[in-house]
């Protein structure tokens, strides 16, 4: 497990990181390193240079204004899972962070790194979609925000330019949310991960969003299922009927040795049902 040779640069600021990424050929950003370094050790990734943003100050803060959370790109999964602001304002996000990988991964891996890597089996993307999060990134042209629904493009591909650096993520608070996953027995990646948000008005579901990762190359919103639940009570029957619609969200389910695309689609229905029930209970 020896990576090929690479140059190493430590950026002192986001601006310097953008400058290095712009000037160095074949450079990759590294933060927690828990996706990139294993890939490099397997020589699946062989960047010529690493630009380390791990020690840039101020990028790991987590704050809340009551309506939404702003999470610094370098916040580790553990710190997201443990932060009082996240647990209180958006329990589903804390639940998602706590479900990632194993304890070492959670202690080192960062939210910005996970989003930028965009692994189909990553846990955050479904939550970001369901919550309607926005990614803030800085590049050569300055800062911009990208809606989660525009951010994930394909397997391991995002809307980020090569020289853009995620600085933070803005996540609307939501009480009625839940993230449930079927964990791969070897890798701990999500075979299927379902993030569900439910908003109640009186006894009826007024809003619903369902993000699903693991099934297809990029995380998707199950809009048909979400729409099916709105406009009536979150009863077991209506949840089951809504969950039965998730299949519409998948163009081409992915399969591997452990679970075929067909089985993943089946599991997506099961976990959607469960996540909706938990989310609705939390919303009420």
């Amino acid at each position, binding site marked *: *497990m*020896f*990576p*090929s*040779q690479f140059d190493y640069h430590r950026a002192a600021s986001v601006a310097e990181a953008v400058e290095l990424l712009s000037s160095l050929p074949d450079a990759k950003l590294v933060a927690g390193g828990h996706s990139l370094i294993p890939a490099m050790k*397997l*020589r699946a990734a062989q960047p010529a240079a690493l630009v380390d943003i791990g020690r840039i100050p101020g990028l790991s803060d987590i704050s809340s204004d009551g309506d939404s959370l702003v999470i610094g790109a370098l916040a580790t999964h553990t710190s997201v899972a443990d932060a009082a602001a996240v647990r209180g304002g958006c329990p589903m996000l804390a639940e998602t962070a706590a479900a990632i990988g194993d304890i070492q991964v959670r202690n080192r891996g960062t939210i910005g790194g996970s989003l930028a890597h965009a692994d189909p089996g990553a846990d955050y993307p479904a939550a970001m979609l369901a919550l309607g999060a926005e990614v803030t990134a800085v590049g050569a042209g300055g800062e911009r925000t990208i809606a989660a629904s525009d951010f994930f493009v394909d397997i391991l591909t995002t809307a980020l330019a090569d020289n853009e650096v995620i600085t933070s993520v803005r996540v609307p608070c939501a009480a009625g949310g839940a993230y449930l996953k*079927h964990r*791969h*027995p*070897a*890798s701990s*990646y999500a075979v299927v991960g379902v993030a569900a948000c439910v908003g109640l008005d009186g006894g009826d579901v007024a809003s619903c969003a369902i993000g699903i990762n693991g099934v297809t190359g990029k995380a998707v919103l199950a809009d048909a299922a979400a729409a099916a639940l709105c406009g009536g009570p979150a009863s077991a029957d209506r949840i089951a009927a809504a969950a039965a619609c998730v299949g519409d969200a998948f163009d081409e389910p992915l399969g*591997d*040795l*452990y*679970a*075929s695309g067909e*089985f993943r689609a*089946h*599991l997506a229905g*099961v*976990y959607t049902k469960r996540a909706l029930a938990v989310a609705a209970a939390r919303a009420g």
Partner: protein
Amino acid sequence: MGRYVGTSVKRVEDPRFIQGKGRYVANIQFPDMVHVAIKRSPEAHARITRIDTSAAAAMDGVVAVFTGQDFKDGGCGSLPCGWLVPDTKVPDRPIVVTDRVCHVGDSVAVVAARTPYIAADAVEAIEVDYEPLPTVVDARGAMDEGAPLVHAEIDDNVSYHWALGDQEACEKAFAEADEVVEVELVNQRLIPTAMEPRAAAAQWDAASEEMTVWTTSQNPHPIRLLLSAFTLGIPESKLRVISPDVGGGFGSKIFHYPEEVIVPWVAREIGRPARWVATRTESQMTDSQGRDHVTVARLAMTSDGTFTGLDVETWANQGAYLSTFAPLIPTALYITLLSGNYKMPGVFGKVHGTLTNTVPVDAYRGAGRPEAAYLVERLVDLAATRLGRDPLELRRHNAIPKDDFPYQTPVAFLYDSGDYDRLMATAADNADYAGMRAAQAEARAEGELRGVGVVCCIEASGPAPSAVAGSLGSAVGFWESGEVRVHPTGQVSVFTGSHAHGQGHETTLAQVVADELGVPIESVEVVHGDTGRVNFGMGTYGSRSACVGGSALVRSAEKVRAKVLEIGAHLLEAAEEDVVYDRETGRVHVKGSPESGKDFGELAFAAYTAHNLPEGMEPGLNFVSFYDPANFTFPASSHICEVEVCPDTWEVRILRYVAVDDVGKVINPMIVEGQIQGGIVQGVGQALTEIGSYSDDGQLLSGSLLEYAVPRADLLPGIEVDRIETPSPHNPLGVKGAGEMGTIAATPAVANAVLDALAPLGVTHIELPLTPERIWRAVQAAGNGA
């Protein structure tokens, strides 16, 4: 017995392991050492049309690059197979291939460099052109008409055919049977996953022409023998092989591997010490793998449920080459176990050892015996279902009665001792089997998928009587050596040919010798794993260290006691028959007068000063024994597993796991419990999570721990371990071996439980591992799709 045997003495080796002070091959360092890396074939079967090493050789920090031709020209012999059944066809297995690769991971070229990073870069810089050849990966498919040939000279991909049992009695049983159940099943390929990957290091002393090799081996002496006689050609007298601390083996570190030849050869060739440490990726594609059987079998019985015959045909995948003991596993360690714990006159089994474009297959924890147990115990459950009988009751009905021991099976083995009915009764009591079944009925009424799996399993361990092994195909003997060296101060060094790679021999063998001599355990040091210190040894596998290695030490300790007694009598000026050796204290004293005696230390000192020894006695106090067991030992177990299957995700949750094992007398209950628990977890891995899988073109799909799922702590509840003891009558310790019983029993226990849970849905068989998707598909196929 004594003060230590039978008690849970804390493991003396653990302080160094848990403080990071263990000394492993990867810790071997020399100032001018080179790092060896190996170019691996990405193709499963191909002709090599070109190798260009020039770019690699020109890299800064690269010391040398070698190809297969260099090793051939440099005197390296091919890797031999140490177990040959009649008419075995053995494909040539070069250390590094020259013109053709036969599995993904085959060695193609070798780099020696200043750092492991440079070595890895240089490996990538070696250019190899491959002309792909057709591949075959399936154990049974390898014998199909027109299947691609792995080796042109073996024109049917069959290495051997082998059969054992009473075919006539078997045919008669089926002709007269009231009921017959049949099954076709796969014992899937497993990839051993020791915590420490394989490694080798070597230092050549050009002046004395002595070579020292450090290797992660379970048996350094046989490795030295093979290096000397076959692969490296350095005389044994000039070759020292050391297996220092080794982090787990599970069988995969028994065998002689190419890297153990490559590293010393390179060290001598370039005149610098050399070291290679496998990456996890290399381990997955080069460590010998386990299981991989396809089997069709049927069980005959009378209407009252008495088993009368078992007929088995197995295709055993041996991989691309025959690993060191490969043909042993599906023959003399598999067919011989097919009688299980049951009285059955008509057992007959045949096996076809086939060659495929896959990593070689050899012993993996249990080695042949888990394959047999899974088959037999599935058939017994199918029989219970057919007859409408309780599976535990049917097993007790057919179990060999305790008064029938020693019991001669129709498949060669003479079981030494056992009490299978008591074993099952104890398991049933501990599990509250009746209560479990009642709870299952209630759960089923609620629509839950609850299952109970019961097994009774047999193991043959403590290999082996050397003459028997020889008659079955072994090229070596399976005795063990043990030396007890009492120093003049009364301190004791114990040299054993067994090798510990996690088992705790430094504790258990010290317990044995301390009790034999009546000395404090702190004064006994156990030395193992070094051909330069231990005179010879056959190593550790097959749960043999206590019964064979321990027995050798008992024999040597007996000789020490006899000499000490003789010296004591002489110094006490008493007749030998008037003195006793007190094994509680190590003192020799006059019978009836404990106060007039000599301490062990005094007598040891007297043996070395030799100022006043009995007439004609040689000085010194040092004995070596070679113990050749009279028979295998036969541990047995009954395990009961309770599971729940989730009716929508189809995940299996183990609710309870109750194990009762009979491993004979127990030296250290804590260590035995750990062995049983660890074994069970490995068996559960085969049942639920693990599969070594190849694509049709020979690519290893489970090539990393991202895909290959070893069981984790959260897969199991607390394991409830208990045991009964029927001592082995033929070794001095009465021990049977505890290393593999858990693994053997756990796979069928879990499989039976899951299939019991799914019985209401009409599912009767699912191939292992029982992953959610496999269960989902089986339920759908049974017409109960959800």
